[in-house]
């Protein structure tokens, strides 16, 4: 949080209530379980993918990161201990090193 506050110029406005409501609707739509081929669309994402997750994520439960890793054709998963949804902030330096390797490869 402290790092986020360090920038003073051109700070974005807080998200509006309408935007938040819209995002909740989008998340519900995303979460709908299809009648068939539950994770089939993941098979079509053949791009190299890096998945980063916290093992105590209460927003998107960690098993979903495992499901992504198992169903995406070319994904690497890094799961960090202790964080909830902000794993990549809690492990900022290790994440940065892994992201750099991933993007440079």
């Amino acid at each position, binding site marked *: 949080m402290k790092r986020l506050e360090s920038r003073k110029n051109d700070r974005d406005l807080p998200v509006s209530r309408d935007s938040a409501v819209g995002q909740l609707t989008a998340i519900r739509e995303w979460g709908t379980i299809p009648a068939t081929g539950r994770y089939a669309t993941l098979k079509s994402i053949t791009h190299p*993918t890096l998945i980063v997750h916290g*093992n105590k994520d209460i927003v998107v439960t960690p098993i979903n990161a495992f499901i992504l*890793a*198992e169903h*995406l054709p070319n994904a690497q*998963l890094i*799961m960090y*201990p202790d964080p909830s949804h902000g794993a990549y902030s809690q492990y900022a330096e290790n994440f940065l090193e*892994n992201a750099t390797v991933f993007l440079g490869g």
Partner: protein
Amino acid sequence: MSNVNLSETAPTQFQGIGGVSLAYRRFGKEGTPPVVCFQHFTGTMNNFDPVHTNRLARDRPVILVDYRGVGRSGGEMPDSIPTTAADIITFVKALGLKEIDLFGFSIGGMVAQQVVLDAPELVRRVLLAGTGPSGGEGMQEFTHEVMEIVNRPNSTPQERTLDLFFSKSPTSYAAGKAWLKRIAARKLDREPEAKPQVGKAQLVALAKWGVIPATDRYGDLKKIKQRTLVVNGKDDIMVPTINSYILQQHLPDARLILYPDSGHGSHFQFSEEFAEEAARFFAAA
């Protein structure tokens, strides 16, 4: 230092542990706790990937060791993980070591878990590759697919290892062949292949390890407070990949890396990337 291939030149040594001697190799930069490395089912010290061991040796002492009965280690392979771990604890203490890191692959990862459970005061960090907890998912017996490969007639050990450790993609298979070439490069002190007793005893040990306890299935994992790195490929047919996820979820301080396009031997397939990650893991404050 980085150009020195210590993995290829370090001689095999022997350490008595009361009645028998264990064969081991020690190399690398002194001044930190050594990382003690444990091998897979029927594997010997020959099979450690020089990409891993040479990278780790740049920063710290690396100790490779063959279990009792394996390679030129004396005696017979124990038929239980706790007995094997007890040998290792005796070995570490006989070397006069007060603090060590552990790196175990497959059955070696089970030995590593048992060592840290039984001698937590000795262990600083733990790296587990292609392994699972006691009583894990699908760890009660090998699948039909695995047994078909193990018992395949007219196949060489190298062909079977490729099919067991790597996924079916051309890239994974090619990475497997590159690994086989790397581990064949060392000519000095090659250990004899594991005798038949080793495989038989290790199968019994694996079956015991796989038994699902009546209560508190993963309770032991909670006792391992040491920082741990768990690594596997997304399609491990020997120790199903979900077990790596289970390890991460139940160990108090574990991080998990799953690699794409790979199986049991993902750390051989992504050898350079894994070696850097492992080096960072052991080096981090």
